[in-house]
């Protein structure tokens, strides 16, 4: 028997689990509960099928999704990512974002860029951009400006810093508002950090050594409980490592 969805929030679900959107307490012929299905969920009439393993999350009033730890990135519209310019052809750059095909990025999709005034971007540069087109049937397209034409934090990365990869689940945890990991890290020393939803993270601190410390700490956060993490950070702060 399909169980109601709401009771399963914050539980671990597996592909193949099926839930009914009808609320059981109102008898059988009530209107189905309205729900917005996010990643890992598929709707089929009144039923919801889980197609990824992970934890069911809920956001008021009716948004549901599966929080899963995967490594491969699949582009989604509006998400901000860190890409590497791999080629330039005509009026577009090809950008590797870690998905199944390279994304395109127009020369004109930078703040202040015009036909005459081309942005200074070379092959091999890193860019922070968001997807303006991302669906399974089309080539994904990036832009470094928002709809008003402002950079809004996006664009080409400057000199220095280090880019590395983390799992998509950890990256989402870093980006969550009030992320405990980021708060704990900030206490150690000041540094700049850019987090792309495609699992790429860029870090720049005062010295190379500090950059590497942040990198290693973030990588080790992957499989640690909050308790373990705090002990580790404590030891780093005391200079014991």
């Amino acid at each position: 028997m399909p169980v109601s969805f709401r009771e399963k929030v914050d539980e671990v679900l597996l592909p193949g689990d099926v839930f009914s959107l009808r609320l059981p307490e109102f008898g059988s012929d009530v209107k189905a509960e309205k729900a917005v299905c996010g990643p890992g969920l598929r709707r089929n009439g009144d039923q919801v099928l889980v197609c990824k393993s992970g934890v069911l999350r809920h956001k008021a009033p009716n948004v549901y999704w599966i929080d899963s730890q995967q490594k491969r990135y699949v582009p989604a519209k509006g998400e901000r990512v860190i890409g590497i310019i791999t080629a330039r052809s005509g009026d577009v750059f090809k950008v590797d974002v870690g998905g199944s095909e390279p994304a395109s990025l127009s020369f004109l999709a930078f703040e202040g860029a015009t036909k005459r005034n081309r942005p200074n971007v070379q092959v091999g540069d890193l860019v922070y951009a968001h997807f303006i087109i991302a669906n399974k049937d089309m080539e994904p397209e990036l832009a470094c400006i928002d709809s008003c034409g402002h950079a809004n934090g996006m664009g080409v990365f400057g000199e220095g810093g280090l880019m590395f990869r983390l799992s998509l689940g950890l990256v989402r945890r870093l980006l969550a508002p009030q992320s405990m990991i980021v708060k704990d890290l900030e206490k150690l020393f000041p540094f700049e950090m850019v987090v792309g939803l495609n699992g790429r993270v860029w870090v720049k601190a005062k010295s190379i050594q500090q950059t590497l410390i942040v990198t290693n700490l973030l990588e080790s956060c992957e499989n640690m409980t909050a308790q373990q993490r705090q002990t580790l950070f404590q030891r780093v702060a005391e200079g014991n490592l």
Partner: protein
Amino acid sequence: MAEEASHTFLRQFGCEQSLLSKPDGSASYFQGDTNVLSGVYGPAEVKVSKEIYDRATLEVLIQPKVGLPSVRERAREQCVRETCEAVLLSTLHPRSSLTLILQVIHDDGSLLSCCLNAACMALMDAGLPMSCLFCGITCSISVDGQIITDPTAEQEKESRALMTFAIDSAQKGVLMATTKGSFSVTELQECIAVSQKASERIFQFYRDSVFRRYSKIL
């Protein structure tokens, strides 16, 4: 685990997920002494010659413990591939490639079922969309007509017939079946029933191990 007289005895089994750093999903699955390591890459870029316009291209490679893959491995690859294709929602990633590599670490019987279980765990770890899960069960019928589930290599050799099934988690239907030796129809139905029963334990194990993995971020 005590060796019970009941039909659905399975050797001790276990799994470790995401143990490899490079693949997008990986798993190591053992049942008894049989051990298979699996890795999944994808959805990644696909070769133009293998591109399918409305779904992902799945490739399965089985690497034997020693030597190069032979015709036997090819036949197994076909079985694993078509089983995975049946449960994967590959239309969600058109024009991309999925590669599943199964490395045999040790073969002590029931190899194909171990490959299937390792494949399912790795696909789940990679976070690929699936309509349901599947598991592999091998049954052998001994000379005196007894059904042994999850046989060792020695039991396989002494058996009169050997069958491997892939069972899906939604309807407990038979996704894949391959047999060796001759047997009656009743024996076949009995083996299917036994496998369906045994599959429940494996699916419960899948759930437990995924739960353990996610318990840290609950």
